[in-house]
């Protein structure tokens, strides 16, 4: 029981202090691994891969996983809730504030600057994904041929999805499912 409480406290702390989401939880997870040994460093690396391949953010996944390892299903649930609690409280406070000050010129000014910054970071995130998905740096380094730099199969799929989305307007979920099947069939 004390372990589960300890676990909840640690994940509450992680939820409270990891600013920026996603990978920002990693330093806290490594700290937890060193201090309490609930999971190993290798477990964290595996969980990054699992988080990329399943829905949900890495922080959520890791809390469920560590909670399950130490306290079964109940542990998994409680650790995840502990992680989410500070996020919920902070956002509830901000949401109140936001409704009230939406028309405040200072808040408007802040968003005037935040909007381009936000899509700049979306672009950077896209490039990070593209580096893994569309480009093969290893093959390029080995042969030096420019043709080897790009993963042509992936680029063709990307172009087709782009056109398909424009024309068909299907839900992104359908395109995600199609891409998964194409990835398996054509061994991406």
């Amino acid at each position, binding site marked *: 029981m004390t372990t589960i409480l300890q676990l909840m406290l640690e994940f509450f702390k992680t939820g409270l202090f990891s600013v*920026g989401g996603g990978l920002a939880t990693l330093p806290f997870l490594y700290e937890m691994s060193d201090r309490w040994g609930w999971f190993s460093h290798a477990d964290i690396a595996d969980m990054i891969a699992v988080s990329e391949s399943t829905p949900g953010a890495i922080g*959520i996944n890791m809390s469920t996983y560590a909670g399950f390892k130490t306290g079964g299903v109940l542990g*998994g649930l409680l650790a995840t809730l502990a992680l*989410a609690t500070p996020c919920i409280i902070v*956002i509830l406070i901000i949401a109140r504030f936001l409704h009230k000050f939406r028309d405040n010129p200072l808040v408007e000014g802040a968003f005037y600057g935040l909007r381009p*910054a936000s899509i*700049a*970071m979306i672009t950077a995130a896209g490039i990070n994904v593209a580096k893994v998905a569309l480009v093969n740096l290893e093959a390029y380094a080995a042969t030096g041929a420019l043709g080897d730099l790009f993963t042509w199969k992936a680029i063709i799929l990307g172009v087709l*999805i782009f056109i398909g989305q424009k024309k068909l307007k299907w839900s992104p979920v359908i395109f995600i499912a199609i891409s998964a099947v194409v990835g*398996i069939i054509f061994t991406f």
Partner: protein
Amino acid sequence: MNQLLDLYWTFAKIGCVTFGGGYAMLPILERELVDKRQWTTMDELRDYFSIGQCTPGIIALNVSTFIGEKRNGVKGALAATTGFLLGPIIIILIIAAFLTNFAQLEVIQHAFAGIRVCVCVLIVQAVLRLWKKSVVDPFTLALYLCVFALNAFSDLLPVKIPAAVLVLLSGAAGILMSQFKNRRNLKTEGGKKA
């Protein structure tokens, strides 16, 4: 009560299909919450993301809490956020219990190589859509380029600037610039009257 259930299930559904987290979920949120249900607007959604960058916690959870609160207050926030958590918790519990080498399976790796391509395209489309409303003048273009360079090439810098700091600085720059513009407008108007 029905409204709360609706929130819960909508976010449970979204939680099951948001691969990659963070900005990769933006297109799905847009489709489900802006186009289909009109619970929020694209502008608001993007503002929630910016706020999520500089507040504690996982961005996906922050967005769920925001929209839940907007629809049904604190109860709505709890319904949306716990709904969002449902899918990931169940999936990870199953993986933890049965499949220890899930990520190493070859089939899974191929599938996710394919999914990553799709995520790329979705992000490109999100940026194209947001561009018009966000980058409206030379100042916002310059800000976009600065933040992009600092964020994308952070490996080349001697110190990595955390995303939260970039967000705070951009907000401050926006405030300064809009104040400066207001003041200039007032001056030119005053000049005309005289």
